[in-house]
C-alpha cells in the first residue's frame, strides 16, 4: 500500500515540475492586480454569479462555490508562491498577501460569517445535525476580520493555528478546490487561462449591479469554502509539493461560465484520482517482492490459497509473533508505540475498527511526541516519510481497514498543512492536538450522536437483531436499556470469530433479554425481529456497506422478511471508493481458524492432516459488501440518512475537511 502511494506521488511531482516553468510569468503579472486590490476584488466578486448556476446544474445538492472569484483572485496572488525559492520565504509572502486579502475581503468575510443564518435553506439539515461544522465556521468567521493577527495568534496557540491561518488566507480559499480538482484540470485548461483576464475585465462593469446577489451567494458558500482552504494551505505548507500550486491558477476557469461545467467534472475526476488505492494487489509478483525486501515483518505466504483471492495477502499466522516481540527492544526504524500496536493487530488483541483506529492514532501521537527533526531536514517531509514507514509496517501486520486509511489521510493532511513558521515543538503539539481532536470528535463524540439518533428508533416491545459485535450498536442497546426501553435483543453470531459472544456477555450481564444464535438460523429468527441494527467498517460512495462478513446475509434476509435494516456508522468511515462485490477488496483471515472445529477434536486433527492436500482449501473472508438496496437507513453523526446520500456527504464534507 505504501508503495502504491509513493508511486502515485511521483507522477504528481513530475507533472508539477512540468508546469512550474510556465507559471512564474503569470504570477508576476498578477501582482500588479493585487496592488489595486479594491477594484479587482469587485470584478472577481462578479464572476461567481456566472459560475454558480453551472455548479447548480451539475449537482443541485452542491453548495455553489460563491467564494471562487475572490479566491481566484487570491489564488492569482498566491500563484507566485510556487516559484522556486526558499520555502520559508515563500510562505512568508503568502501570509503577507493573505493578510491583505483578509482586510480587503472584510465585507465578504462578514457575509461569510453569517452563514448559519443565511445558509439555512441550503444546508440546514446537514449543518444543524453536525455541531462541529458550525463551531468551525463561526470560529473562522470570527477570525476573518482579524486576519492581520493570525500569525501571532498562531504562534501563541499552536492548536488553533491552522484554522486561524486558514481564515487569514481566506483569499486563497478557492485554491483548495483547485487543489482538489487537481492536475487533470490544469492540463486540460491551459487555453482558458489566457481567457481569464478578459473575462475579469468584462465582469468588472457588471460587478456593482450584481454585488448584492453575489454577496448572498458568497455568504452561503463561505461556510463550505472555508473547508476547502485547508487543502490549499496544505499544498502551500508542504514545500515538496509546492510545485503543485500552479494549479490554483488553472482553477480560475470557473470564472468563465462556459468552462465551469467542465471544471466541475474535472474536480470530480481529480477527487477520484486523489483517492489512494488502499490495497496492493498481491498477485503482482514484482511488487510483492519489492515490498518484501523492505518489510520489517517477515511473513511466509500460505501455500494453498484460494485462486479467486490470489490478489489478497495471506500469511501463515503465529510463527512470526514471538520473533517480533523479541525484537521489541532493538527497534530502529519503527517507534515502539507503533510497533506495539502493530503486534497487537497481528495477534488480534485489538479488533474492531474503532479500537484499531484509535490505537493506531494514539501510537502515532506518541511517535510524534518523541520525534525530532534530523538536522538538514524539513519536519513536514521527514515526518511524512516516517509516518509512511509506520503505516507500511502496520499494513504488514494486518491490512488497514478503510477507516484507518481515512484517519491516516487526515494525519498526513495535517502534517502537510503545518505552517512553516511553526517551531518544532509547536508543530508537534499541534499535530498531537489534531489527533486528539480527531479521536474525540470523529469517533467518540460521533458515537454519542449516533446513539442519540438511533435510540429514537427503538420502541417498547421491539425485537432488535444485531450481528456480530459492533461497539456503536452495543452503546445503543445499553443506552436504550438504561433509559428504560423494553426490548429484546437477538444476537446473531458467526464462526470463526464468534464476536457475538462478547456482546452477549456484556448485554446479559446488564440485564437485557437476549437470544443468541448462529447466522445459519437467521431466517428462522428473522421472523421475530422488528429491526436490524448493524455496525459498519466502511460505507462506500455507491452506498455499499463494507462490513464484517455475514452482514450482507443478515441484511438480505432482513430485506426478504421486510425488516428494516439500520446501519450505524461514524462519518469518518465513509469512503469515496466504490465497490460492487466482496471479492476485489477484502481481507483474508487465518484459514486454520475455519479448519479447526471446536467440538470434534479428532476430526480437527484430521483436517490438519488434510492441510497438505492441494485440493482442500479453507477460506476465511473477513469482510463482505452489502448492496445499498438492503439498507433502509444509515445513522451517522450527520443524522439519519439513506444510503444514496453517502456520496453527497462524502463530497460536501470531505471537501470542507469536516469529514476528516
Amino acid at each position: 500500500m505504501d508503495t502504491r502511494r509513493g508511486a502515485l506521488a511521483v507522477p504528481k511531482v513530475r507533472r508539477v515540475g512540468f508546469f512550474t516553468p510556465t507559471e512564474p510569468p503569470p504570477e508576476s503579472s498578477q501582482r500588479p492586480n493585487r496592488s489595486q486590490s479594491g477594484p479587482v476584488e469587485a470584478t472577481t466578486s462578479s464572476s461567481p454569479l456566472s459560475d454558480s448556476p453551472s455548479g447548480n446544474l451539475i449537482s443541485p445538492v452542491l453548495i455553489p462555490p460563491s467564494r471562487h472569484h475572490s479566491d481566484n483572485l487570491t489564488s492569482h496572488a498566491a500563484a507566485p508562491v510556487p516559484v522556486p525559492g526558499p520555502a520559508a520565504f515563500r510562505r512568508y509572502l503568502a501570509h503577507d498577501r493573505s493578510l491583505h486579502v483578509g482586510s480587503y475581503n472584510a465585507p465578504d468575510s462578514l457575509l461569510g460569517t453569517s452563514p448559519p443564518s443565511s445558509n439555512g435553506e441550503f444546508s440546514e439539515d446537514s449543518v444543524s445535525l453536525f455541531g462541529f461544522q458550525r463551531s468551525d465556521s463561526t470560529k473562522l468567521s470570527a477570525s476573518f476580520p482579524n486576519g492581520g493577527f493570525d500569525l501571532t495568534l498562531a504562534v501563541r496557540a499552536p492548536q488553533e493555528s491552522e484554522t486561524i491561518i486558514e481564515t487569514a488566507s481566506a483569499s486563497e480559499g478557492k485554491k483548495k478546490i483547485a487543489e482538489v480538482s487537481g492536475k487533470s484540470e490544469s492540463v486540460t485548461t491551459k487555453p482558458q487561462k489566457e481567457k481569464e483576464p478578459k473575462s475579469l475585465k468584462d465582469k468588472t462593469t457588471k460587478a456593482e449591479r450584481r454585488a448584492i446577489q453575489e454577496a448572498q451567494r458568497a455568504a452561503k458558500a463561505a461556510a463550505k469554502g472555508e473547508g476547502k482552504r485547508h487543502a490549499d494551505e496544505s499544498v502551500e505548507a508542504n514545500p515538496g509539493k509546492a510545485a503543485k500550486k500552479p494549479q490554483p491558477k488553472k482553477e480560475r476557469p470557473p470564472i468563465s461560465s462556459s468552462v465551469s461545467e467542465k471544471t466541475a467534472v474535472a474536480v470530480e475526476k481529480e477527487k477520484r484520482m486523489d483517492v489512494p488505492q488502499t490495497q496492493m494487489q498481491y498477485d503482482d509478483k514484482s511488487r510483492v517482492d519489492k515490498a518484501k525486501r523492505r518489510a520489517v515483518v517477515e511473513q511466509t505466504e500460505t501455500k494453498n490459497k484460494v485462486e479467486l483471492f490470489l490478489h489478497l495477502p495471506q500469511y501463515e499466522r503465529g510463527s512470526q509473533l514471538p520473533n517480533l516481540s523479541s525484537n521489541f527492544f532493538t527497534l530502529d526504524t519503527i517507534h515502539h508505540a507503533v510497533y506495539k500496536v502493530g503486534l497487537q493487530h497481528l495477534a488480534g488483541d485489538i479488533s474492531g475498527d474503532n479500537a484499531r483506529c484509535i490505537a493506531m492514532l494514539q501510537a502515532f501521537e506518541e511517535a510524534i511526541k518523541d520525534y525530532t527533526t534530523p538536522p538538514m531536514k524539513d519536519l513536514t517531509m521527514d515526518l511524512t516519510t516516517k509516518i509512511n514507514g509506520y503505516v507500511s509496517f502496520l499494513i504488514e501486520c494486518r491490512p488497514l481497514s478503510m477507516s484507518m486509511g481515512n484517519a491516516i489521510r487526515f494525519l498526513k493532511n495535517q502534517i502537510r498543512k503545518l505552517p512553516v513558521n511553526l517551531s518544532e515543538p509547536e508543530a508537534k503539539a499541534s499535530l498531537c492536538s489534531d489527533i486528539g481532536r480527531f479521536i474525540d470528535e470523529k469517533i467518540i463524540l460521533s458515537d454519542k450522536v449516533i446513539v442519540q439518533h438511533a435510540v429514537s428508533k427503538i420502541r417498547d416491545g421491539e425485537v432488535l437483531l444485531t450481528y456480530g459485535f459492533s461497539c456503536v450498536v452495543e452503546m445503543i442497546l445499553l443506552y436504550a436499556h438504561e433509559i428504560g426501553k423494553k426490548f429484546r435483543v437477538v444476537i446473531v453470531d458467526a464462526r470463526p470469530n464468534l464476536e457475538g459472544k462478547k456482546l452477549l456477555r456484556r448485554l446479559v450481564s446488564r440485564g437485557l433479554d437476549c437470544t443468541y444464535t448462529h447466522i445459519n438460523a437467521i431466517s428462522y429468527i428473522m421472523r421475530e425481529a422488528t429491526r436490524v441494527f448493524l455496525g459498519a467498517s466502511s460505507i462506500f460512495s455507491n452506498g455499499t456497506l463494507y462490513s464484517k462478513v455475514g452482514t450482507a446475509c443478515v441484511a438480505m434476509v432482513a430485506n426478504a422478511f421486510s425488516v428494516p435494516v439500520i446501519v450505524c456508522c461514524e462519518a469518518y468511515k465513509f469512503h469515496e471508493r466504490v465497490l460492487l462485490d466482496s471479492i476485489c477488496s477484502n481481507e483474508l483471515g487465518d484459514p486454520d481458524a475455519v479448519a479447526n472445529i471446536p467440538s470434534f477434536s479428532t476430526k480437527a486433527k484430521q483436517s490438519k492432516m488434510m492441510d497438505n492436500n492441494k485440493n482442500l482449501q479453507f477460506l476465511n473472508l473477513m469482510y463482505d459488501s452489502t448492496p445499498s438496496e438492503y439498507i433502509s437507513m444509515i445513522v451517522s453523526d450527520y443524522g439519519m440518512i439513506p444510503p444514496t446520500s453517502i456520496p453527497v456527504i462524502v463530497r460536501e464534507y470531505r471537501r470542507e475537511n469536516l469529514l476528516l
Partner: protein
Amino acid sequence: MPDVQSMVAEFVNKLRKRKIEGSQATAKCTVELLRSVISHQRVPHANQAAALIDAVKAVGQQLVAANPVELAVGNVVRRVLHIIREEDLSLTTAAMAGLDLLDASDDDDIDNCKGIGYPAMSAAVVAAAARSTLRPPSLQTLLEGTPESATVPYTSSSGADSESKSKSADKSSLTRKLKHDVIEGVNQLIQEISGCHEQIAEQAIEHIHQNEVILTLGSSRTVLEFLCAAKEKKRSFRVFVAEGAPRYQGHLLAKELVARGLQTTVITDSAVFAMISRVNMVIIGAHAVMANGGVIGPVGVNMAALAAKKHAVPFVVLAGSHKLCPLYPHNPEVLLNELRSPSELLDFGEFSDCLDFGAGSGSLQVVNPTFDYVPPNLVSLFITDTGGHNPSYMYRLIADYYSADDLVM
C-alpha cells in the same frame, strides 16, 4: 409376533432419540421394518388388503409420532400403503378380467353408460379405483363428473373385498399372491431407495460443465455422489462448501470430496453471500420436498437460496423419491423444524456467571434449529431419480407415488 413388536419398539426408540440420521437411512430402515411387519402379519381370508393396511398404518403411526420431523418415515409408510392398494387392485382387476371374459365384451359399453348390472357395477368400481390412483385421466373420466370420484377412495378397497367374498373360490390362491406381491413391491421400493443416488448422479453430467463453480452446504450423500459422478466423467470444477455451523457437516462433505479428488474450498457460512456472485450453481440435498415444491433442507439453506436468487444463480435441489412428501406445508419453518441442543452454540454454564437469576431481569435464549425451509419460488430445479422437474410440477410427481386416502394417517 412378539419379535415384530419388539423390532418396532426398538426402531421407535431410535427415532425418538434421533439415533438415525439422514432421511435415506431412516427411509431404508422404515421399509425394512414394514416388510417384516407385512410378512409376519397373519392375513385373514377375507379382506386381506384391509388387514395389511391396518397393520402397516398402526406401525406407521407409531413411527411418525416418534419423529414427526423426519418426513421420510411418513413418506415410506404411505408408499408401502400405496403398494398394498395397488397390488390389491391389480389382483382384483385380474379377477375381474377373468369374470368379464365370461360375460360379453359389451360389459365395457354398459360400464361406460353406467349400467346397473352387478358385474358392470364392479367394473365401475375398478375403473374408479384406477382413477383414484391418478392414472392419466381419459377424456371420459374427466366428463364423468365429481361425485363418483369423491366416493372412490372408500369404495376401492371395500369394493374389492365384496368382490373377494363373492369369489371365495379363488381366494386361497389370491391371499398368498397378494402378500407375495406386496413384499415384492416393498423390495422394489427398497431397491429404489438405495439406488436413488446412482439414478440422480447419472444426470450430473447434464448439469455440470467444465470449470463450473458450485456451492453446496450441509452434508448430503446425494450431493456427494452427484458431484463425484461429474468428476468421474472428467469434468473439472471447483466446489465451495459452507461449513454449516454448528454441526459442521460441511467439513465432513469437504473431506469426502477431497478424498475423491475434487477441488474443494471450505467457507464460513457467513461468506455465502460474498461468494455467491462467483458461483455458477448452488446444489443442495434436500431433507424433504413438500408437495408445493418447497424444500426442507439443512439450516442455512434459505439464506443461500435468497442469495442465489439475488444473483440469479440456479438453485438446484437433489432429492430421492423417498423425500417427496405429499403434504402441503403450513408454517414449515417452525412446525417442521427441530431445535437442537444449545450446547452446540454455547458451552454449558458459559454464561451462568453473568446471568443474575435472583434479579429476574435479563434472560438468555439460545436458538439452534436443524432445518430451514426454502419456498418454491427460490428453487430453480429439482433433480429426482426420475429426472429434472420444476417446483410447480412436484405435486403431480408426488401424486404418482401415493394414494389419496393415505395422506392423513
